[in-house]
């Protein structure tokens, strides 16, 4: 009997919380979707993710190949021969185009 009474006061508290705090209601929603959230020290997980932002590559070769592929997409009119070499094969230094990221001027400066 007393267990039921306790449960209902807890429910009342939760209802009060929902009414009083939209934030707590949102938290309940989140916990429902991701039950494991916050069980680990969430604070430092978030922080550590923040400290290491940026995409990790296997090595510089991997990085240069990814950049070349992106450049292929961004500048389809670029000289075909050079990009063919660097797109799918491991590039040698003489094959790499000079890494001038933005030959294109800013659109604000038009």
């Amino acid at each position, binding site marked *: 009997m007393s267990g039921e009474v306790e449960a209902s006061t807890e429910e009342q508290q939760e209802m009060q919380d929902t009414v009083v705090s939209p934030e707590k209601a949102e938290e309940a929603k989140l916990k429902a979707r991701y039950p494991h959230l916050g069980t680990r020290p969430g604070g430092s997980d978030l922080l550590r993710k923040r400290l290491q932002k940026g995409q990790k590559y296997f090595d510089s070769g991997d990085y240069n190949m990814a950049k070349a592929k992106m450049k292929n997409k961004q500048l389809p009119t670029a000289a075909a021969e050079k990009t063919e070499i660097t797109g799918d094969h491991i590039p040698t230094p003489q094959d790499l185009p000079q890494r001038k990221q933005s030959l294109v001027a800013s659109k*604000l400066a038009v």
Partner: protein
Amino acid sequence: MVSGAGGGGNDVQWCFSQVKGAIDDDVAEADIISTVEFNHSGELLATGDKGGRVVIFQQETENKSQPQCRSEYNVYSTFQSHEPEFDYLKSLEIEEKINKIRWLPQKNAAQFLLSTNDKTIKLWKISERDKRPEGYNLKEEDGRYRDATTITTLRVPVFRPMDLMVEASPRRVFANAHTYHINSISVNSDNETYLSADDLRINLWHLEITDRSFNIVDIKPANMEELTEVITAAEFHPHQCNTFVYSSSKGTIRLCDMRASALCDKHSKLFEEPEDPSNRSFFSEIISSISDVKFSHNGRYMMTRDYLSVKIWDLNMENRPVETYQVHEYLRSKLCSLYENDCIFDKFECCWNGNDSVVMTGSYNNFFRMLDRTQRRDVTLEASRESCKPRQVLKPRRVCAGGKRKKDEISVDSLDFNKKILHTAWHPQENIIAVATTNNLYIFQEKVN
């Protein structure tokens, strides 16, 4: 025409002046604007983007015959400030995105600015060239050398006017001093030093010296598992060259005095608003993280921006802010989805007007907020291509939090969370503001009758 003062956010009517950037919706990542900053006179306006480029606009001298046509900002100079790099040790890319631009006060004919990406700060000199020497004896005008045997007379080369050329050249590169990502730079009022802050450390530099930097704050714990907070922003006091503040992801601000010790790990003042523990939720710490801190021009106050509010602090009172303004309180009941789409981590900036009477900050749906401190009123405006007729007055916007939506109101669920205004700047003296949407720069001015 009354200029100066720069007061009154709400008896001021804002009207459209200019918009820069492409109209099409397909935004290339490189075109995303990442910082906006007026120089100390307001004559120059600099923007930085994700592609590492800086564009500087210059205010045209006013046309006296047409007083309604307030001076416009036109492109003055543009250059590639930073390039992408690869950190070989960590196998991570170092983005070329310009995180901050800060102007140095003008000392001579040239202009100087500091621009920084995640790892490297550069000092750029922007100078004008409007004359060139002509009439060399040994060279033709196009630079080719003349045949010495054909020279029969001597002449004195003279300077002749030429079309204005604006050149930007990197004068200093301040590199290799930050293990973590630089979020702030701030020039000291002594005009000789500046600070740079990353997630865990703050360094002090001399503008002339690039191979050395003093570490003045270090909050890195011995064991990274014990990490509880990071530095989110830092700024020097506008007049006291020994004083600076830094804000944290936990919603606190520390004021440090460099006269107290070489390493300012121990703060002189700690600004923190006490939290009601019964209100604490999973989101509390995330939304209390301070994304920007700015001193007022008079140096008596500082403003902080966290996810939902703007707070004004009196430097003499540490235990609570003197003013708190809600930016978009209707988002409090949307925190779950804002966490899922990462918007809860967006870093909004804020700025003061010239006489510290009004503050401005951005929001979603290309809305921005003007908060008038003296009149205790606020207004929401929108930067949109639909209000782009010359001198068109901006209409106040209203968001309906729930219940019945009135005419002209927009409901919270209709807001476009991809259209965020993170960066805004206010002319130091006049009522001219620069508002950056994702890839466009809007300039609004006070309506002149």
